[in-house]
Structure formats: structure tokens, C-alpha cells
């Protein structure tokens, strides 16, 4: 297990460096940053001065090296708009997005696991079809539309939940449901598919032959095996929620990373955009690593790989 973990860690490191390079390069090739910084009607001399000032006239590889070295030490540069460092800006917004995504994932699993298990056990009955119907509905409804619907219903009409802001846990419920609801169908389908396959396997027959109650057969013997691909998908979904929270955060006016990214892009605040790109990419790398380790822990056959 330790060797497996070390190998995965090394791989994650390599991928991390690669994605940081991509995050850096993408912004360089998207246009001349000096012109973008100086503004539309700056004189060529101004542009040149900016180029000098930000070190943009040096070879790209040197700029990347410097940026990476600083990034490793936690220095992502300064925002061009806010009088703050990028690292600070991100750090103050990060808890909001993390809370939102974690709650979204929990809600997605709370919907997906029971529905997926029940659909699999009641395969090809009306219960199965109803569960599938719920899943299709979740995927068919756009995020913002569902969010607005909830704001209208629970926020305005019923007045049960606050409609914007991030002061209390109650503020997170509607946005988290919006996020989770959207992720639930794919998790549910995977759970159902895995359970259907596992329930017909020989070792489930063995479990029944031992006289185990259905609950133990399903939750201990079947789910443990069916959940393995779901765990991997969860980390991808969590990454999607982190990066895809732009819409949700905007609808509910949550001051998170997604909102910050949207602001930074519209203001051409490129150090912030770069920082967020790097952060989200690293999140993906870390999540993949966690998923790998979790999978190995769940499936003893992987551990020795």
C-alpha cells in the first residue's frame, strides 16, 4: 500500500507541474498581455514600459520558472484590480466554494446512493423507472434555471431560506442542492449499474447461502464492490463542482472562487485568473490522487498494482 501511495504521489507531482505549465502558457498565447494591461488606447511606449515593468520581455520559460518558484512559496502575484495579493484573494474566497462543493457532493450522494441501490434491487419495475425519471429530470434542467426556481419557491414564496449571501449554513442549502441535484443523476446511474452487476455475481449468491440478512448482503457484500467506480467519479464531480460553481455562485451571489474567476476574467485581472486556473487544476490532481488511494483501500486487488 505504501509503495502504491508513493508511486501515485510521484505521478500526481508530475501532472501538477504539467498543468501549472499549461495554466501559465494558456494565458500567454491568448493575446499580448502587455497590451491588455496597458489598455486599449495606450501608446506603444506605454505598452513597452508595461512589458518592461512586468518582465514580459524575458523568455517565456524564464517567466514560467519565476512564477512557478513564487507559486510554490505561496506567492501568486498581486491582483491588478484589488489592492491585495492573489493568494490572499483566493484564500478568503476558497472556504465559501469548498463548503458549497462539499455540501453539494454530500447532497448528491444522499440522493444518488439510496436511489441507485433501490433502482438496482427493484430492477425493471416502476420504482426503477421512477428513479431513472428523477435522474433524467436532474440532468435536463439547467443549473441556473433550477437555482432560480428554488429561489422563487423557498426563498420568496415560502420564505424558508435566505436567497443570497454566505453568512450562515442556511445560505448554502439552496446553492448546494442546486449543485448536488445536477451531479446526482450520473452518480445514481453508476451506483445502479454497479449494483445490478454485483448483485448477480457468484459471491452475492454465496452471501445468501450463508444465511445473511438482505441488508447485510446489500450493504456489506454488494455495495462495497459496486461503490468503487462511484468513488472515482465522486472526485471528478467534486472537481466539477469547484470549477463549475461559477453559475451557482453568481445566481446566489456567493462570494466564492467561481464568482472571483468570473470577475477576474471580465476585468482582465490575469494574475488572479492564472492563480485560480492553477488552483483548480491542482485540486483535480489532488482529488484524483485521493480517489486512487480510496479505490486501493476499497479494492484489495488494486493495492498491489
Amino acid at each position, binding site marked *: 500500500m505504501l509503495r502504491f501511495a508513493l508511486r501515485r504521489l510521484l505521478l500526481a507531482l508530475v501532472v501538477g507541474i504539467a498543468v501549472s505549465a499549461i495554466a501559465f502558457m494558456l494565458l500567454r498565447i491568448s493575446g499580448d498581455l502587455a497590451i491588455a494591461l496597458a489598455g486599449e488606447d495606450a501608446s506603444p511606449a506605454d505598452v513597452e514600459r508595461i512589458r518592461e515593468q512586468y518582465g514580459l520581455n524575458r523568455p517565456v520559460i524564464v517567466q514560467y520558472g519565476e512564477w512557478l518558484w513564487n507559486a510554490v512559496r505561496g506567492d501568486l502575484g498581486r491582483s491588478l484590480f484589488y489592492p491585495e495579493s492573489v493568494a490572499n484573494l483566493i484564500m478568503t474566497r476558497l472556504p465559501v466554494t469548498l463548503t458549497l462543493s462539499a455540501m453539494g457532493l454530500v447532497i448528491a450522494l444522499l440522493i444518488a446512493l439510496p436511489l441507485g441501490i433501490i433502482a438496482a434491487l427493484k430492477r425493471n419495475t416502476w420504482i426503477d423507472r421512477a428513479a431513472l425519471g428523477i435522474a433524467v429530470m436532474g440532468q435536463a434542467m439547467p443549473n441556473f434555471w433550477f437555482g432560480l426556481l428554488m429561489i422563487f419557491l423557498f426563498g420568496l414564496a415560502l420564505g424558508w431560506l435566505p436567497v443570497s449571501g454566505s453568512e450562515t449554513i442556511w445560505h448554502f442549502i439552496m446553492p448546494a442542492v442546486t449543485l448536488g441535484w445536477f451531479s446526482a443523476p450520473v452518480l445514481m446511474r453508476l451506483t445502479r449499474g454497479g449494483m445490478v452487476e454485483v448483485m448477480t*455475481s*457468484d*459471491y452475492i*449468491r*454465496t*452471501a*445468501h*447461502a*450463508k*444465511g*445473511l*440478512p438482505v441488508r*447485510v448482503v446489500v450493504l*456489506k*457484500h454488494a455495495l*462495497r*464492490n459496486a461503490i468503487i467506480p462511484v468513488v472515482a467519479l465522486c472526485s471528478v464531480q467534486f472537481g466539477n463542482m469547484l470549477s463549475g460553481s461559477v453559475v451557482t455562485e453568481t445566481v446566489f451571489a456567493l462570494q466564492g472562487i467561481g464568482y472571483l474567476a468570473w470577475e477576474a476574467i471580465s476585468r482582465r485581472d490575469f494574475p488572479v485568473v492564472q492563480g485560480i486556473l492553477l488552483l483548480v487544476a491542482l485540486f483535480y490532481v489532488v482529488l484524483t490522487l485521493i480517489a486512487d488511494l480510496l479505490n486501493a483501500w*476499497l*479494492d*484489495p*486487488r488494486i493495492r498491489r498494482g
Partner: protein
Amino acid sequence: MSAPVVNAAAADDVMAGHVAEPVLEVQHLAVQIPVADGVLHAVRDVSLSVPRGETLCVVGESGCGKSLTSLAVMGLLPGGARRTADRMTFLGEDLLSMSPGRLRELRGNRMAMIFQEPMTSLNPSWTIGDQLTEPFIRHGKGGKAQATERAVFLLERVGIAAAGRRLVQYPHELSGGLRQRVMIAMALMCGPELILADEPTTALDVTIQAEILHLLAELQREFGMGLLLVTHDLGIVARVAHRVAVMYAGEVVESGPTTAVFDDPRHPYTRGLIDCIPIPGRNKPGTPLGTIPGLVPNLVGGITGCAFRDRCAYARAGCDGAIPVQAGAHDHGWRCVLSESVADSTPTEVRA
């Protein structure tokens, strides 16, 4: 030889083995499975009985319904399969009308099953120790420590070295032979009165097949269990079985004490099977075994008359009608129009 009995009730008793207080008794079991092109009558008429502490071997070509018969007893038939029987009892208790809860109390506790597929019958995500101790703890036989102690004892008993270390291993770390030994140990955990072993060695390396079958027979004697052993190995059957039931196309076509069936087979199919046994010295190892020519009939939609008649050298008028169940001495019964020994009958024509 006594005169054949064509009395239906008496013949039923004969086919079932008619013994006092059997641990398992099955009368006229049928299993139907809906398939794409109709209803498959996979098991059509199976009656058998396993007396306490005895071994009944069930033999027959692949596909004749042996696995479904054992699964029907355990209540483990695949979804959609329909099970009917006149009688099916475990130590006198009716299995047909039994509540799921009561069935769970018996399964893995007083009756246990060993499957044909050792490679896939253990859960890949749990250790051998966890899976072995599970039925013991679940059926209230004792705590974790006692369960572990018994698991180690049984693993050693089924011939697994370093048993203590095996407990923390996962199934994928064990060979097929070891996994089947684990399955055997698991079946023994609660000290069952009946073991159903469905071709426990078919999937294993030939070199260890006989060893495992002998182990099973030995354990059966040692623990005084009833054993229903499904196997292809007629050599083993001759040595370990008290009684034999020969199945063909979903029916028991002949049953009786092992010596009677082997020395005086009455059904041409039984005779064919016995003729296919390799004899050391006569058949060189590695040469293919003899087989009965012809194909097993399709059982979708059912079949009337003798299912073997298309392959039978003794087929005659009457084989397409109702087939009588006949009885000889010592509860020897067979389902055939022939009443004399196959050896004394003349083939009607030779079919290939």
C-alpha cells in the same frame, strides 16, 4: 431380481430412496425458467433423498439440471425461475412453505452449499478471515475469538498450511484450489447437517480434483453430515457414494445404492455413462473419454416420452409415451420401458 413395480406411489418411494428420517427429501421437483423462446423446463422430475450421515452422488451430463436442483433446495434459484415440488423437506421441515427468515436461519448454518465456481464465489473486497467467521457469528455460534479459532481449525483441517496467516489475505491472493478449500471450510463453520457440493472440483486443476473430492468424503464421515455431491467423476462416486442418482434432461432416470447402480445399471443412459469411465491400464492418460453419441434434447416447452430415446440403442415403440418408473431390490429404481438388465436386452438398432 424382484419383479418390476409399476405402481405409481410405490415407485415414487423407490425413486426417492425411501429411507427413515432423511436429512433432505425431495419429491417431484420441477424448475422452469422463462427464456427468449418460451419456458425452459430445466428440471422436470427430480426425487431424491439424503439420509443422515450419508452421501448421495448426483451424476449426469452438463446441462441436465444438477446445479438448478441444488440451488432449488437452497432457495437460491436465479430470479424468474419457478420452483414446484410435491415435497421438499430438510429434517422434516417443509422448505417449500418456509418463511424467508426461517430459511436464512438454516442456510449457512444447518445446510450449506459449495459452488462450482471457486474463483468467483468469494467476495474480492473482504478478507478470508472475515468471510469465514461471518456465518459463525451471524448464526450466534459464538464471538469473534471463537469464530477465528474455529476458522483456523477448519482451514488446517481442509489442508491449508499457515492457516492463521491466510485469515488476513484476500481471495485474489489464493489459487483456485485454495479458494475451494476455503469454501469447504466456510460451509463447515456452523457444523451443518447437510452439505450440497455442486461439482466442487470441475473448475480446478485435474491434479487436485480427486484430492479435494476425497477430502469432502472424509469430512462427511468425520462430521457425520449428509452430503449431496454433484460430480462428473464416476470413479469417485464408486468409492464414496452410498447412493447414486443419475440425471438426464431434468429427470432422475435411475437411482439406487451405488453397488446396484454400478453393477447392474438398468437405464441405457446409466450404462452409457459407466462405459465412458476410463479404466486405468486400458485408457492411456490424456486420451479423450468415450462419450454417448447424440445431443441432449431442447427442453424449451417441455418434452413427452423418454428424453433419451433419440440417443438410445434400445429405443422401441412406447418410448414416446408415458415412461414407467420401475423398482428393483434395495430401492433401486429406474425410469425406462426396459425391465430387465441393460446387459440382457438387445439393441433395436445402432444409432450414431
